[in-house]
Every structure is written in structure tokens, then in C-alpha cells.
């Protein structure tokens, strides 16, 4: 992705702000008046209006076309897929670690992300994942959080 500038960023933020503004103004709660005379949606509407103003200012600034955002150039389909996989693994860990066991999911999470970050030595990766998993498990236990070690079907 080349030549992504402040103008493009501002337009992206403007679209996002417009979407949020549409959500607020079309909701059934926004114009309901409360007992103190204010609308339920008055503050969200005021704040999203500020978002619109400042996103517009970012897009329309004089130097918006010359300010290049090089980091956006790093984005790629591979990178997006890695993030999607990370999201999936994180949700799996959060929602199912009690049922499937913390140890297995934690090691899976670490190994997957280690590979994504360029680690190609399987033995070091597994040793690293096992050590981190054990350290985190002990830390959480010491702080009073109970984690399930193995899948519940194991009965442990």
C-alpha cells in the first residue's frame, strides 16, 4: 500500500465517525428526554460531532497530502491473516480455556504467534512456550486466579 497520507487517514476516520453518528441518531434511545430535561443521546451526539469535526480537520489540513504514513505501507494480506488468526486464538483461549484446558491452548497460542513472528526452530519454540505457560500459570495461581490445566473431559 503506497502513499497513504494524512488525507487518507482523515477520510477513513471521517467514514468511521459518520457510521457511528448514523448509529447514534437513528437509534431509538437518542432523542428520549430524561427527567432532568436532557436527551439520553445528547452527550454521545456531541462527542461524535467532535469526532466528525476533527476527522474532517485531519483530512482537510493543508499538509494532509504531503504527510505520508509509512507504517500503513507495511500492511499486507498475510499480515491481516495473521491478525485474524491471532484474534481466533485469543477468543478460543478466552472462551474455552476452562473447557479445553489452559495449558494446551496457551502453548498453541504462543507457538502460533512465535511462528508468525519468524521463529522457525521447533524445539526452542516449544521449550519457550512451555516455560512461559508454566510461569504464567504459577503467577495466576499465586494471585488467586484458578486456571484449568487439562481439558475437563480428563477430569483433572
Amino acid at each position, binding site marked *: 500500500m503506497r502513499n497513504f497520507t*494524512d488525507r487518507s*487517514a482523515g477520510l*477513513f*476516520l471521517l467514514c468511521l465517525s459518520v457510521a*457511528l453518528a448514523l448509529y*447514534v441518531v437513528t*437509534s431509538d*434511545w437518542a432523542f428520549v428526554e*430524561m427527567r*432532568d*430535561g*436532557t436527551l*439520553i*443521546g445528547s*452527550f*454521545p451526539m456531541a*462527542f*461524535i460531532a*467532535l*469526532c466528525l*469535526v*476533527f*476527522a474532517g*480537520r*485531519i483530512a482537510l*489540513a*493543508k*499538509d494532509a497530502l504531503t504527510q505520508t*504514513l509509512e*507504517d*500503513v505501507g*507495511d*500492511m*499486507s494480506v498475510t*499480515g491481516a491473516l*495473521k*491478525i485474524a488468526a*491471532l*484474534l481466533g486464538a*485469543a*477468543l478460543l*483461549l*478466552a*472462551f474455552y*480455556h476452562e473447557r479445553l484446558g489452559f495449558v494446551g491452548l*496457551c502453548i498453541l*497460542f*504462543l507457538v502460533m*504467534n*512465535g511462528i*508468525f*513472528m*519468524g*521463529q522457525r526452530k521447533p524445539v526452542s519454540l516449544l521449550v519457550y512456550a512451555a516455560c*512461559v505457560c508454566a510461569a*504464567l500459570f504459577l*503467577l*495466576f495461581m499465586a*494471585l488467586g*486466579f484458578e486456571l484449568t490445566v487439562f481439558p475437563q473431559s480428563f477430569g483433572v
Partner: protein
Amino acid sequence: MSLDYDALSLALSMVFQLETLLWIAVGIAVGVGVGAMPGLQSSTAVALMLPLTFNMPVATALGLLIGLYKGSIYGGSISAISFATPGAPESAATVADGNALMRRGKGKKALHMALYSSVTADFLSDLLTILMAPALALIALKFGPSERSWVLILAITLIGALSGRNLSKGMFSAALGLYIGTMGSDPIGLVPRNNFDLWWLRDGIPLPPLVIGVFAMSMVYQELLRPEVIGAGREKMVDVAALLKSKSEGLKLREFLRCWKEIGIGLGVGSFVGVLPGLGATVGAFLSYAVAKQASPNKGIGDGALEGVAAAEAGNNATVGPTLVPLIAFGIPGSATAALIGGALVMQGATPSPRMFSLFPEIIYSLFIILLVGNLANLFIGRFFAGIYARLGEVPRRYLIPLIGLMAVMGTYAYQQNPYHVVIMLVMGLVGLCFRLFRIPEAPLVIAFMIAPLAEQNLRKAHLISREDWVTTLFNSPLSVGLAIACVLSLYLSIRFQIATRVRAGKVDT
């Protein structure tokens, strides 16, 4: 405000117990390590550790977080001096002199000067904090809802205006933080609103998932987009290790005392900058470095002078205590890390406000004692483990990033054992990623998020008191009018500053 001896004795017993002292030491040790790792900031470390404090007693929780904060601000100087790679932005001002000394074989002196000037300025600025905060809280207690609303608006304008080179980006960040702060339900009638019809958003967005997402998870996403290994070479590591093992080249007392003027400048500038919401340690370091350079033109600051290291390091560490002043005096967090410490206090049942001095005096005294004790821990831990910390800059990103990702997920889950908080954290991480890619500062978002419900509550209370007349609501006293003028002035001056900067940049280009 008189001293409450019972509360003081309770605070002393809360702080001087093994558990609290141990966690202060852990906080400092981890914080210095985090600070020494390029790319990791104090706010990331505090955000990741925040969930661990929920099951701790309040003094222990404060000890861990303040230890992290103090340690990470100092820790950045280690990699700045050793590898010319500042561990955090606030240490960038140390690079010029610190690394020049390193290249001349005086790295040990520079590392010691960084530590001693950091601890000295930090300790003295903590004393200023202890003197200033109660006095300001007394003033704040006299404020009504209208004045409080204006103080909050002033804080938002300052935060947005001062947090970056681009005013609009800072203000957008603050505006989005305000909007996110309205999610869940309205703060007075508790009527559900702005929750996208998701039942798990009815209580709004809690602070831990927001900050962990914005500061830590966004970094993991960005690294996945750019999977390159960042870090200095192995030869450099060997150099640093050898240097720190050597018996010679340590800092002499005479050399330290020679820098009293620069440490004094760092203390003054850093303390002033720390009190203002939105500025923080980076501005403190650069400003005191610039003032010291002007004040001592013959000392060779910029070409490898110990005075340069002293000014920059005193300047950044002197902001640590004062940045908590707006939080405990007005309930307004002055920086992202102060917001996180405020969040920890809220979760412990002690909401930061001027009334905290009368409601929870033992917590305030504990905070003050921890600020002072933390310096001692910083001195000893920083002194004896500097060699190990220098090596931390070498930890490959391929090991570090998965660990941060895992800590972010499990830390968020640990907050209330609610997996939906992890969903919020992951979404906030995507918001943070956009901010990183678009170079939008994250701190205004977090601070404004905390301010939003307070601003709404105070404005609506003032509105009710003034019988629903908005002019009387907003301008019901000379103080309100003065604060309103200060808000307008703050915005006007920041716009002028932006224009002047652009004009100067234009002249340089041509």
C-alpha cells in the same frame, strides 16, 4: 488540611509489610527491564500488570504500579546510553550525551549518572507532590459542578493540544475517548444507551480491556503486520556486559555534585511539566535538556557531557510524582499511566477526587510513602542489576511479542473472569492499531475516556442546579468564566503554536 496521625500510622503499617515491599521491588525490577526494552513503554507495562492488582490489598497494588512507573521511566536510559536506542520516548534526550560517553569508554559513569540524577529528581519532586496535592485538593473542594465541568473541559483541551505535533489528531483521539466513555448507560439515570444492542456492553467499557487493547494488543497487531526482528547486535551486548563488569570508570561523588545545576533544572522543569495534564515525561526530558543547554553553554552538553545526561534524566523522572497531582487533587488523570493508577484506585473502591483526602486518608498517605520508598528500591535495583537490564534490550521480538499477546488476553480475562472483556480488548487493540498506523496519540483517548462520565455528571448537575438554563449552568461564577477563558486561550495558543511550527517547517523546506 491537618495530618491524620491514625491514618498515617495505618498507611505506614500497610506499606511496611513484606508483601507490599516485595511487590514494590517486583514493580521496579520489571519496570526497569521494560523501560530498557526498546518499544515498550511504561503505560504498556502498567496496563498489562493492572489486572494482577485486583486481588491485592490497595497499598500492594499501588506499590506494584508505581514501582513499574518509576522503574520504566529510568530504565529507558539504559538502552539509550548503551545502544543509542531509547527504550522509551522519554529517554530520547539522553541518547546524544549518554551514548557519546559510552563510545568514549565512560558508559559506566553515564549509566550511574542517569540512575542517581533520576532518583534524586524523582525523590525531590515526590516531596513537592506531597506538599502540593493537599493544597490543590482544598481549592478543588470549593469548586461546584460548573467549575468542575470547566476544569474537565480545560484538561481535555490541554491533553488534546499538548499531546502531539498535530492538534487535530490529539483532539480526535480525545473526542473518540469521550464518545467511548458514553457507551453502556447514562451516568445519572443509568438508562441503557450506545451499546449496539449487545447485552455485554450494557455496563459500558471497563478501563482494563480498553487500556490493554490500546497500548499492548495494538503493539502485537503491528508487529504481526511487520514481522522484522528489532534490536541491537550481539557485539554491542558483549561491550555493555564487559563495561558493567569493569571495576573502573564509576561515577565519583565530585562529578555527581558538579551537576547540581542541571539536576535542579530537571527537577524544576520536570515537576512543572508533570503537573500539567497531557505533557508527561518526554516533554519534561527534552525541555529540561534544552534549558540546561541554554543555561550552561560552556559545559559541552550535546557532545557527551555528564551534565546532559543529568538534565534529561532528572527532567523525565521528576514528572513521575507530579503527574499524580491532578489525579488526586481534581480526579483528572494527567497522563495515561496516571489514568491507569486512577483506574486501579477505582477498582479498589477509592475513586480519585478531592474528597479522597478526607474519605481515604490512609490510601493517600500510602501513595505518598510508596512514592518515596519506590525511589530507594529504584536506586538499589537499578544500581545492582543494570548489567542484566542492558541485556534485556536484546530479547528477540519473536519471543517478546507472543508473551505480550498472551499476557494481554489472560490479564483482561483475569479482571472479572469475563471472556467478553477479551472481545472488547481485541476490538480496542484494532482501534489502537489504527492510531499507531495513523500516528494519532493514544493517551488523550484513555484520559478523555475516564473524564467523559465525570464531565457529563457535573454538567448535568450544574444544569439541574441552574434550573435548566445553560448560560447560568456554564457561567455561574467568576471562576467558571475564568476557566472558560482558560479553555479558549489553551485552544487558541495551541492553534497558534501549530501554525508557527508549520511556518518554520515551511521555511526550512524552502
